[in-house]
C-alpha cells in the first residue's frame, strides 16, 4: 500500500449515515471521523446498530443505505463493491466468520491477497513467497499451520475462527481494520493474540475500529477514542474513562 501523506484527510469519515433493514431504520444519522494512526472503539448495547454499521462500511447488502456518506481516504466507499473496498484498504473482521468447506484456507488467503495486489497494479506473490509470509503471520497469531490445509474456517472452534480473522488482517495489511465483536467468546489467551495482531498493524497511516459490547478487550488494546452508540447514532465520545463508566453503570443510561 502506498503511504498516504498525512494532510489532515480523515482515513474514515462518516456523515449522517442512515440505513435500514427491510422497513426498520437501524442507522439514524451516524457521524464518525477516524484519523490515520488512531484506534477507535465503538461500544453499545445489543441492537444499537453497531454490527449493521460495520457491515454497511464493508458493503454487506443486508442493510440498505438511505442517506449520508462514508469515505475512505476521501473516496466514496458506498459507491464501491465489497471487493473494491477491500482493495481500497478496508478490512472487516467478522463477528461470525463463515465456514466454506471445499475452499482451502491457504488458497483462499493467497487468492485474496493476490486479487488485491493485482487490482492495485502490484506484483502477485507466488506460492512459495506466500507460504513464507503466511508462516510468519501464523506465528504472530499462534495458529497451528495444520489449519491452513482445511477448508476456510471448516470445523474451527470460535476462538480459532477469530484467530483466522486476525491472520487474514495481518496478511492483507489493510489501512482500516473494522473488527466486529472480535472479542466475543474468546478466552484470555486468544484476546492477547487479537491484541497483538492489532498492535502489530498500528502505524501512522493505518487505523483500527473496534466494535464491541464489553470493555474487556480495551484492557488489551488501548483506544484513542471511545464512542458509545445507541439507537443508530453515536451518542457520546470520550477516552478510556468512558469505558470504565460503561462497565460500572451498564448501558441503561445511554439508551435514547
Amino acid at each position, binding site marked *: 500500500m502506498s503511504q498516504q501523506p498525512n494532510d489532515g484527510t480523515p482515513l474514515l469519515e462518516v456523515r449522517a449515515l442512515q440505513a435500514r433493514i427491510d422497513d426498520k431504520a437501524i442507522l439514524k444519522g451516524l457521524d464518525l471521523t477516524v484519523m490515520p494512526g488512531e484506534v477507535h472503539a465503538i461500544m453499545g448495547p445489543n441492537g444499537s446498530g453497531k454490527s449493521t454499521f460495520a457491515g454497511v462500511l*464493508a458493503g454487506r447488502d443486508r442493510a440498505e443505505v438511505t442517506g449520508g456518506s462514508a469515505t475512505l481516504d476521501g473516496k466514496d466507499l458506498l459507491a464501491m463493491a465489497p*471487493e473494491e473496498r477491500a482493495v481500497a484498504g478496508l478490512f472487516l473482521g467478522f463477528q461470525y466468520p*463463515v465456514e466454506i468447506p471445499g475452499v482451502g484456507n491457504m488458497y483462499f*488467503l493467497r487468492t485474496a*491477497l493476490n*486479487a488485491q495486489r493485482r487490482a492495485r497494479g502490484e506484483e502477485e506473490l507466488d506460492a512459495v513467497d506466500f507460504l513464507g509470509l503466511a508462516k510468519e503471520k501464523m506465528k504472530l497469531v499462534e495458529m497451528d499451520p495444520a489449519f491452513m490445509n482445511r*477448508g*476456510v474456517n471448516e470445523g474451527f472452534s470460535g476462538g480459532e475462527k477469530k484467530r483466522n480473522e486476525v491472520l487474514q488482517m495481518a496478511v*492483507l495489511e489493510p489501512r482500516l481494520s473494522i473488527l466486529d465483536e472480535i472479542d466475543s467468546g474468546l478466552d484470555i489467551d486468544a484476546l492477547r493474540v487479537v491484541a497483538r495482531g492489532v498492535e502489530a498493524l498500528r502505524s501512522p497511516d493505518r487505523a483500527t475500529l473496534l466494535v464491541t459490547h464489553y470493555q474487556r478487550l480495551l484492557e488489551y488494546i488501548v483506544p484513542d477514542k471511545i464512542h458509545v452508540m445507541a439507537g443508530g447514532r453515536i451518542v457520546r465520545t470520550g477516552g478510556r474513562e468512558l469505558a470504565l463508566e460503561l462497565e460500572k453503570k451498564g448501558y441503561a443510561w445511554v439508551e435514547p
Partner: protein
Amino acid sequence: MNEAARSLLAGAESLPSAPEFVASVRRAGREAFEREGLPTTRQEDWRFTSLAPLAAHSFGRGDPAEQVTPAELERVAGKSFGPRLVFVNGRFDAGLSTAHGLPAGVHASSLHHAIAVSPALVERSLARTVAVGGRPFAALNGAFLGDGAFVHVDAAARGGPVELVFATVARDRPAACHPRVLVVADAGGEATLVETYVAIGEHPALTNAVTEVSLGDGARLDHYQVQDQPASAFHHATLAVLQGKGTRLSSHSTALGGALSRSDVLARLAGEGAETHLAGLYMADGGRLVDNHSVIEHAGPGGTSRELFKGILDGESRGVFAGRIRVLEGAVKTDAHQSNSNLLLSRDAIVDSMPQLEIYTDEVKAGHGGTVGELDADALFYLRSRGIPAAAARGLLIYAFAREMVDRVAVPALRDRLGRLVAGRLPGGVAILEGA
C-alpha cells in the same frame, strides 16, 4: 412411428450380416422401437424430459468410415492415461487406440472382434441385463448392434484403468451413433473402466450408448462415464448391471455437455451382500437439459446401495433426477440411501428431483435426502470482503460444491482431468484447482 423416429431407424435393416444371436437382438430392438417410437412427456419416465429438440433434427446413422486425426481426438478427449480403445461412430479405430498396458486378466477388444472369436462368451451375456420393452433408446441401440467394446475381466484380474472413448462424428449432417459396451467379470475379478463420450463436427451428434455389466460372485468394477460433448449434442446412456453375490459396483458419471443428456442406470443386486455405489455430477446452462434416472433393485438379502447425485444448473437449464430404489421380497437387511443436491445459479434454472422408495420386505434401512439451493450469500460476501472479485468468488463456491464428486474419482489422472473440465466451465477457470 413419426418422421423423427423413422429417420433414426433408417439403415438398421442394411447392417452387415452377423451371427443369429446378434441378428435376433437387432430384430427385437427394431420391432420394439417401431412399436413404441420416441417417448413423449405423457410417459411417466419422460414427464420432464421433452424429446422435441431431438426430434427437430433428422439424424442419419453416423458413417463408420469417418476419419478422426489423433490431434482432433486429443482436443476433445484429452491425452490417454493408460490403455485406450477408441471408437469412431461406433467403429473400433485401431490407429487411434493404445492397447499397450492392459492390466493382466483384463481383455478388451472391439465387440465386433469378440463376436467373431468368442461368440459363445458374448452370446452368454449380450442383451441379458436390459429389456427393450419400455426402453426405446435401448431398443434403438439394439437395432444397430454391431460394434462397440467387449471387456472380459477374468478371475485373476486386478489393476489399472482401461479407457473406452466414443466419438460421434457429425461433420456434414446430424449423425447418430449407438455404441454398445459389454462387460463380463468372472467371479472375483476386479477392474476399472472409464467411458469417455465426445462429439466432433459442426452438426448435432446423437450418441445412444448401452453399457451392460455382469458381475460374477465377488467381482468388483470401478466404472466411470464422462460425457463432455458440445452444447448442440444429444446423449442417452443406459447402464444396466447384474450383480452376483458379494459383488461391488461403483459407477461415477459426469455429464457436462449436450443440449439434452440423459442417463438411465438399472442395477440389479441379485446375489447376497452385493454393494452398489452410484455417483453423478451434472452441469448445465443455457436452455440445456440433463436427466438422471436410476433404478436400483435389491433382489438378494444384505445388499447395500448408496447414491449421491449433484447438479449445478445455470441460465434456463433444467435438471431432472429420478431415483427409484426397489427392495424386493426376500431382500432383507437391505441398506439403501440416496441423495440428490442441486445448486441453482439462476432464477430461471429448474430442477425436478424425485426419490422413490418401493419396499416389499421387512428389516430394511432405506432413506433419501438432498438439497436445492442457491450460492450461500454469506460465503459470497465473505470472499468478496477479502478482495476476491464477485465472479471469481462465485467460481470458488461452485467448485467447492462440485469438488466432493471430483474427489471421489479413484484414478488420479481422471480426477485431474475432471477437475479441469469442471473448473474450466466456471468463472476463475482452472486456477481454482490450485486450492483444491
